[in-house]
């Protein structure tokens, strides 16, 4: 076939294509005729009515403490918004007086809004947010005089107690990024931004409902479409019960006032957190209502960072509390038995290397070593482990050691149900080889045996170490929420995780910790009638030593394990021991003895000076 013939053959196709165009045009005209002339239904709907899809917001889930006391609830608040194009001549002075702001405030606010991203004269802009019912009332009376201004009713959080603010966290307006990625949210919705509000957002938020309303051409609501046949009801968010005992939490925050530090108490059998104090703390009620903005600014500017949850975000050298984990490792690896004796001549000496210790009997076996917190004992333990010939050199010994630490929950996030958790630091052989090449041994890294040097843990990890000892070798990932209404907790908050050390090793460490209370560094932790176990810690750092303590009670059926860490508090016995004792006593006896009350008052009134620097 010739090219010309082909050209001709294909030219006929223009009729097919032209035909398709005409066909589409005909179909569309018929469709228009149908919609606009034949069909009366649509006309009726539009002439008098039209739909308006209204979102009905669900109530956010509440939070209770472990004894069923209400902690966090909802309270109505009002946002004042405006659509710039709809504002007509408004008496600005009258508006300002109704809202209790100055003319200057008004101008400043307006200028700020106009400059903000996403400003459009057609859409609703926020003017003031979170007004309480009282603050809002005078404005509402005069609302008709300010065309273009609207009111949006919302629900904000209120708190029954002035404690645990950093645990509850905060809610705030959802970000554009979140809106784009999650179709649940629309602009202006609230979302949990910090703490439990953020980590349990999907549980707490519930499901939105919709009402299909009919509006007339002037926008007046005429009622529900087909008597609400198309409406969906909002599903309220689920309530949370926390493991927190709010009275214990309040006591903890009082004891740490004017000090920087943390207290974490865990119920060993369940992993539920009984109290988690991060000091300085703040009263969450400060962040409600109109003064929210100012207070929030103040808290976030504070150099001591009250908005930071040190219990999970702070990483510290664990000091002597860490010796328990060393004893466990050495016992399990067969490096020592509880009868093994080591020399301590006021410290650990190895060739020219010397690491000091305090005065106590020598040589000594394991229990007194834990009870008196002998540095030399654990240094020798590490040296013996590295040179036992069981491993191929220091590298392998180091990595075995590291595996023990990781199995106890160190070096990685534990997985608590609150955002921002830190990992802490557990070095491995690669870490040291990078610094020292192949020329390092037990003495090079010796300070890890006493919880100094490269090792850092979060107070939560220290508390978890104590809970694991109380359980004799297992732990449940610590968590704040003990139950979700109508739902179960994730598996990691229900199952016990074993460590690499066996029960026998733990029993030995428990005996040492018991001896520390009866006869050692923790005598101050003894509570009459209860068998308490404990271990002090005094962590060296650039400034004054940090004061630390771990303890649990009763010894044979532990109900509570606690870790206390006070920055620059000095000896473990100075702050750690008495605070830990008070927390345990309060929880186990539900009250404090007169003597303890006096002690609590005394600790509460003590102030540690930290200087002006950022902390």
């Amino acid at each position: 076939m010739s090219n010309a013939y082909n050209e001709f053959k294909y030219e006929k196709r223009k009729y097919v294509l032209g035909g398709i165009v005409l066909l589409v045009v005909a179909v569309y005209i018929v469709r228009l005729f149908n919609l606009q002339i034949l069909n009366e239904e649509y006309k009726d709907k539009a002439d008098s009515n039209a739909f308006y899809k209204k979102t009905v917001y669900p109530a956010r889930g509440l939070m209770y403490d472990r004894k069923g006391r209400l902690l966090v609830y909802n309270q109505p608040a009002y946002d004042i918004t405006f659509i710039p194009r709809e504002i007509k001549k408004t008496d600005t002075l009258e508006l300002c007086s109704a809202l209790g702001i100055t003319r200057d405030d008004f101008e400043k606010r307006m200028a700020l809004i106009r400059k903000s991203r996403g400003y459009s004269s057609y859409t609703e802009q926020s003017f003031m947010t979170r007004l309480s019912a009282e603050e809002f009332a005078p404005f509402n009376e005069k609302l008709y005089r300010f065309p273009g201004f609207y009111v949006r009713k919302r629900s904000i959080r209120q708190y029954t107690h002035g404690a645990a603010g950093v645990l509850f966290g905060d809610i705030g307006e959802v970000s554009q990024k979140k809106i784009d990625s999650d179709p649940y949210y629309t602009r202006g919705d609230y979302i949990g931004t910090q703490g439990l509000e953020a980590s349990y957002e999907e549980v707490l938020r519930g499901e939105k409902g919709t009402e299909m309303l009919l509006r007339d051409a002037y926008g007046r609501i005429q009622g529900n479409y087909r008597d609400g046949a198309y409406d969906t009801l909002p599903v309220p968010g689920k309530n949370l019960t926390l493991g927190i005992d709010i009275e214990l939490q309040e006591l903890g925050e009082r004891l740490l006032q004017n000090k920087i530090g943390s207290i974490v108490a865990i119920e060993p059998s369940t992993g539920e957190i009984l109290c988690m104090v991060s000091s300085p703390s703040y009263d969450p009620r400060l962040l409600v209502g109109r003064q929210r903005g100012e207070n929030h600014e103040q808290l976030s500017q504070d150099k001591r960072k009250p908005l930071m949850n040190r219990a999970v975000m702070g990483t510290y050298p664990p000091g002597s509390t860490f010796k328990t984990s060393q004893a466990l490792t050495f016992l399990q690896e067969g490096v020592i038995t509880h009868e093994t004796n080591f020399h301590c001549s006021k410290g650990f000496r190895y060739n020219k290397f010397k690491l000091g210790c305090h005065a106590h009997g020598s040589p000594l076996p394991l229990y007194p070593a834990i009870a008196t917190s002998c540095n030399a004992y654990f240094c020798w333990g590490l040296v013996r482990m590295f040179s036992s010939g069981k491993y191929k050199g220091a590298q392998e010994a180091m990595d075995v050691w590291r595996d023990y630490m990781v199995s106890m929950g160190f070096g990685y996030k534990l997985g608590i149900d609150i955002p921002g958790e830190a990992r802490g630091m557990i070095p491995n052989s690669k870490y040291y080889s990078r610094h020292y090449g192949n020329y390092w041994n037990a003495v090079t890294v010796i300070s890890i045996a006493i919880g100094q040097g490269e090792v850092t843990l979060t107070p939560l990890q220290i508390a978890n170490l104590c809970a694991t000892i109380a359980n004799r070798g297992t732990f449940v990932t610590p968590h704040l929420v003990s139950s979700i209404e109508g739902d179960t907790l994730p598996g990691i908050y229900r199952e016990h995780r074993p460590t690499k050390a066996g029960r026998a090793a733990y029993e030995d460490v428990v005996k040492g910790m018991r001896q520390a209370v009866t006869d050692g560094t923790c005598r101050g932790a003894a509570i009459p009638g209860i068998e308490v176990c404990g271990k002090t810690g005094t962590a060296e750092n650039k400034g004054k030593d940090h004061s630390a303590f771990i303890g649990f009670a009763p010894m044979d059926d532990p109900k509570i394990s606690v870790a206390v860490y006070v920055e620059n508090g000095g000896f473990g016995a100075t702050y750690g021991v008495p605070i830990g004792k008070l927390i345990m006593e309060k929880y186990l006896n539900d009250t404090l003895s007169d003597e303890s009350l006096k002690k609590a008052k005394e600790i509460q009134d003590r102030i540690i000076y930290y200087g002006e620097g950022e902390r």
Partner: protein
Amino acid sequence: MERERGNILHKIDWVTIALYLSLGIMGWFAICGASYSYIESDFLEFLSLGERTGKQAMWMGVSFFTGIILLCFDKRIYKDWSFIIYIFFTLLCIVTIFIARDIKGSRSWISLGSSFSLQPAEFMKFATTLALASFMSRHGFSLQKKGDLIGSLVLFMLPMLVIVGQRETGSALVYLSFFIVLYREGMTGLVLLTAVSAIVYFIVGIRFGEVHFESLDVSVGHYAVLVLIQLFSLAMVKFWCKYDKSALVLFVVNVVGTLGCYWIAIYLISFNIIIVQYLLVAFNVIYLLLRVRLEKEKDNLWVVLFIVGSLAFYASCDYVMHNVLKEHQRTRIEVLLGLKEDLAGAGYNVHQSKIAIGSGGVTGKGFLNGTQTKLKYVPEQDTDFIFCTIGEEQGFAGSVAVILVFAAFVLRLMYLAERQNDRFGRVYGYSLAAIFFFHFTINVGMVLGIMPVIGIPLPFFSYGGSSFLGFSILLFSFLRVDADRNVRL
């Protein structure tokens, strides 16, 4: 080589320019209607640059000015520069994916200063059109050659992929309109037939899948698809293969078998007629294969392939609908096919848009008097749903007028394309006609509720500077090519 000299003004097609201007002006007034609200505002405010109408007017001016400049380059320049332009814009579109800010999930906008941003993808159509026209006008080009066909496909599938990468699936689909051009230039009609039959199977199969014959336990959709497969395959035999006595046998068997069994099943004894249809289809396949073998009629093989493909496609439709598509996508399809009423979700936009149009009546409510659009019931009312405003304010009369002007515009472009003396001009013209027609069909069809909701603009109507400029560039460059149609390159 011959060159005509003379004033360009005498040679450009003023009919097209008149249609262009009337579309642009109607569009601008529609945007006024869509963005106007109850505030007693000065009409002059529409021209203020702070308003969308003002911005649009400015862009229209820019576009017209650009158009005039484009008229100054002759055809040779367009042809010589085509691949450079194509490569430039393809690269720009790729770069955009990485530097663009994420706007509602799409990465297609480059911002220039605080209040203006550009969408390079709108100019990609121009670049692709140029490159395709240039490629297809090479000496000895034929779509019958495998290499040429693949080359052409790659030229417009590549930008399509890039734009999918920008998460602008709607805009990417526009590139399918180049298939219309390929069809005009000699691509086998099989492709078009396959596409049409696939759509028909899908719609019929899903829409009537759950409907059953009154007296039989047989799905109407399933039955109808099988009958359609028979119909299409017989039509193929009639038009593409040798039509002889043995073909006649095929026809008789199918018609008698289908009608006879249907009649028996409905009026005498009820039995599963689907099985009969499957037997008939199987018979067709064997019969056609025999024709290939015995009569050496290779064309019949294509029909067999078509039948098998159709069956496989129908089977996969059901699977895709229930196992691959996500909940909201399935709902969207079900709403479109009228299987579900979903006012709160996927059906909301379209339902509102139908109410707005329906309320317009014969003559409409008058300019700026629309209530539906004004109360912001219709989302995207000045971009993708702009046709709503016309329907409501100008009524049936105005809407039909707009549709007719659009149709005239597309047909005029086809006419201009047909009068070209070389393939470059013709491909260029058809590409334009196809792009405008695709936009028109999808956009208006979506607003009328008979096409799926795919977010692409209505040319010259929807608010948006980039798109107006992009369409104007396409049009004016072609007008110059048309003016030079007697110049032989």
